[in-house]
């Protein structure tokens, strides 16, 4: 005590990092994420051998890659969630600038891997999709701008963020990558909603989305075919949706058995966009409902924790990240059960994919960093008698 008082022993002015992290982190969400990742590896064992066979690799080549990328992603997740919100914001702004420039230069240096849309940088050992990293970084930047606009005498951050999102959506639409564009637009919209968007403006925006959809339907054959396929009550069994529906029906409640599934042999995207069909066929409805519960609990828990948050920046950024995570999972599963028109979207942490997995790790890491319990100044409310 004496030493402490007189300063001969350095007193730690704060709690140790890891214990504090463990105490404040949302352990339920973290567990859900880890379980999802494990399920991803499990399904990868089932879904990726046909792909490996087609591409001439040994059977579990893609599972190994998924494990390596997954480890990197989990490390990124933990490291990010250790950071303070301010540090997260600073790094994200830097990352945003880098990703934005990378996206802008995509038409010049990017490749399309023969898929008709220039979305990737080829790094030799792996491919990199800048929009995957841009998404979470943009959420942070936009949240920062909107929070700043709530200060008295602050900058017109909402307007700035609107211009920013429009620029990004335009660039993505040019690739074309309507899926990511919609996702970014959705993330921004949700943040704007929570930041207190006027109601009539929200209705107007909904109208704009409908108009834009009609325009795309009339002008893009690709888009029109997807919508027609969705509206048609009959399923063409030779389409991916047809195979997926059949797989879900075959699976029933408890599945056809591990490794017994057939859909993975006929679906080209069984390991990414339609992994839920593989899960439904081999493990049945039980596993699918479990996966849905995991996603729902991460999203709903995060949103409920953010309700208590007083810092507008943290609240907005957390909302954006959580909603984007949830919506991505929902679109993927909604397409497989024909609730939504066909749109390629990976199932976060479960689908195979290098850069998307790492980007998802970082983005969920940031979400966990924002949802950590921290003093919210309730005592001040009590003292001021303003506690409701």
């Amino acid at each position: 005590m004496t030493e402490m008082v007189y300063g001969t022993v350095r007193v730690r002015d704060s709690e140790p990092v890891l214990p504090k992290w463990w105490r404040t982190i949302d352990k339920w969400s973290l567990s859900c994420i880890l379980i999802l990742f494990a399920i991803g590896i499990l399904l990868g064992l089932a879904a990726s051998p046909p792909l490996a066979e087609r591409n001439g690799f040994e059977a579990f080549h893609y599972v190994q890659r998924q494990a390596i990328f997954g480890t990197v992603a989990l490390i990124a997740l933990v490291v990010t969630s250790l950071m303070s919100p301010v540090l997260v914001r600073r790094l994200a702004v830097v990352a945003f600038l880098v990703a934005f420039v990378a996206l802008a230069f995509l038409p010049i240096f990017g490749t399309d891997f023969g898929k008709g849309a220039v979305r990737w940088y080829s790094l030799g050992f792996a491919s990199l999709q800048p929009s995957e990293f841009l998404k979470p970084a943009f959420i942070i930047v936009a949240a920062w701008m909107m929070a700043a606009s709530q200060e008295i005498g602050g900058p017109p951050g909402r307007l700035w963020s609107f211009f920013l999102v429009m620029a990004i959506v335009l660039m993505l639409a040019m690739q074309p990558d309507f899926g990511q564009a919609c996702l970014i637009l959705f993330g921004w919209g949700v943040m704007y909603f929570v930041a207190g968007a006027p109601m009539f403006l929200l209705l107007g925006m909904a109208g704009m989305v409908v108009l834009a959809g009609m325009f795309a339907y009339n002008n893009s054959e690709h888009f029109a075919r997807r919508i027609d396929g969705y509206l048609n009550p009959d399923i063409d069994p030779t389409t991916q949706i047809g195979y997926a529906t059949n797989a879900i029906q075959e699976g029933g409640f408890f599945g056809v058995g591990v490794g017994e599934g057939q859909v993975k042999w006929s679906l080209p995207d069984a390991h990414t966009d339609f992994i839920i069909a593989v899960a439904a066929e081999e493990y049945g409805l039980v596993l699918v409902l479990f996966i849905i519960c995991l996603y729902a609990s991460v999203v709903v828990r995060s949103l409920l924790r953010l309700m208590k948050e007083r810092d507008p920046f943290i609240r907005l950024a957390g909302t954006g990240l959580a909603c984007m995570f949830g919506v991505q999972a929902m679109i993927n599963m909604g397409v497989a059960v024909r609730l939504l028109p066909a749109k390629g979207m990976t199932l976060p942490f479960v689908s195979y994919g290098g850069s998307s997995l790492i980007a998802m790790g970082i983005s969920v890491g940031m979400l966990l960093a924002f949802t950590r319990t921290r003093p919210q100044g309730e005592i001040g409310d009590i003292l001021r008698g303003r506690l409701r």
Partner: protein
Amino acid sequence: MIRTPLRPLARILEARQKGENPDAIERENLRIRHEQMRDTARVRAEGRLLVLGVAFFCAFAITGARMATLAASEPAEPRAHTQGASIVSSRADIVDRKGRILATNMDTYSLYAHPQQMIEPERAAQALAGIFPDLDEARLLRDFTGNRKFVWVRKKLSPEQKQAVHDIGEPGLLFGPREMRLYPNGTLAAHVMGGTRFGQEGVHSAEVVGSAGIERYFDALLRDPAREGAPLALSLDLTVQAAVERVLASGMMLMNAKGAAAVLMDVHTGEVVSIASLPTFDPNDRPMPPVTGSPADSPLFNRAVQGVYELGSTFKIFTAAQAMDLGLVAPETQIDTKPPMRVGGFNIGEFRNKNYGTLSIEEIIIHSSNRGTAKLALQIGNERQQDFLRKLGFFEPTPVEITEAQGGQPLLPKTWTDLSSVTISYGHGLSSSPLHLAAGYSAIANGGYAVKPTLLRQPGPQYGPRVMSERAAERSRVMLRKVVTEGTASFGEVKGYQVGGKTGTADKPRERGGGYYDDKVIATFATIFPAHAPEYVLVVTLDEPVDTMGEKPRRTAGWTAVPVAAEMIGRIAPLLGLRPDYGVPDPIHLASD
């Protein structure tokens, strides 16, 4: 709204008096206001976050529920639906007058390939070339290994071929159900049937479209779903048709003709009971139209309907019948047929320049005198002659229900002079089809009513307008009978069936340069039987026949078309249900008498 100032004057003044910094008050107020603003924002955000949370929960719940309903439903056998309106492929059968099948449908399969799904394209191409010798292996391999996603291999497969393809075991080779048109009788009545082809084709079905004949004429009717596949009943009789074609084919061979046609018509209804044209083809495998040579020499050409010929002396009976109908002459009226006779600067001659002297009308027909009929024609006058022939149907294509009928447009003189009138009276200068002739003879046979040739079964007699008196028709029939018993068609007698008829031998016009061949004829025999109460008209036409059994080649109808027709009647009359009439039988003598 009352704005509360950030710097309330009262407090500022108070602070100044106390010597405090008034800016602190402003900062304090600013802080409080800021906090209030954040609080309202927070409360609003709390509400909206709750909305978001509930929305997400609901969305996930719906996805889960949908997943559950899907998992609970039974997987259906994958069945592709056809885009848009499905192709109606069921086509009505065609049957003969007694309901026997002439054309029907058979379920078969088409063969197509999805090269993307192929495991061993090389082996598949090799095996297919082995099964179908007409397929080119190199080309198949190129199709199977290229970028194509869909390749038609065969449109129709036999069951054996299908099994053989199945045994290749290649998943990229697929079968599509097909309904194909089948003519179980092969070449029988080929020209009436015509044929079909595939119209709009899909993987799961193909449209069968009539390409010729009655299939094309009644294409819409045969495919009409409202008829629910009720068969189309024709006037043809399958067994009679078979007998007619058989006899005609052997007669054509025996007489060294290059083509032949026969029409058998019911004189009361105009029903075509049998119609044949040789050479023929198989409608199951309809040949392509010829690209070289005359289309009239192609097996596809229907000589009985499309072929228009100068049918020669068979027309003489029309002239005689009209003259008698008009009351100009009676059968016994004597006509001077001695040469010379010149009309319009042309000399009218007889066969082999004979001189018959003075003949009765009956004898003119029996001996087939050109000058005799020419004189009758001049008496009738060309206005009345045209009118008569028009009523008999010689001015229009026959209205029979096959698409080719429109091609049988009769060739008429451009200006109908006295010379035209004279030559047409004995069958030159007007070309018509054997079917026209049969319809014309029917009017004489049924007592003077025009009939409309038809290929559809009729419920009863279908008389058109009267074209001659009962008496003139009756007298003409007697003359026709005498042509067989006493005249040029003596080979035409068939015991028990009282055949009457008129021969016609017309020189064929040269294709170019005008004039006629010396050694090419169209020999026709138009008959009615039984002559006392005719039921049927049979017209047999041989193209360029020559009978080489005698000392010198004989080409006249009496030596060529008549024996063929007689043989035909001998075979078909019993099939048609005609009772033979051998006259009064000899009295029966008992052996004991």
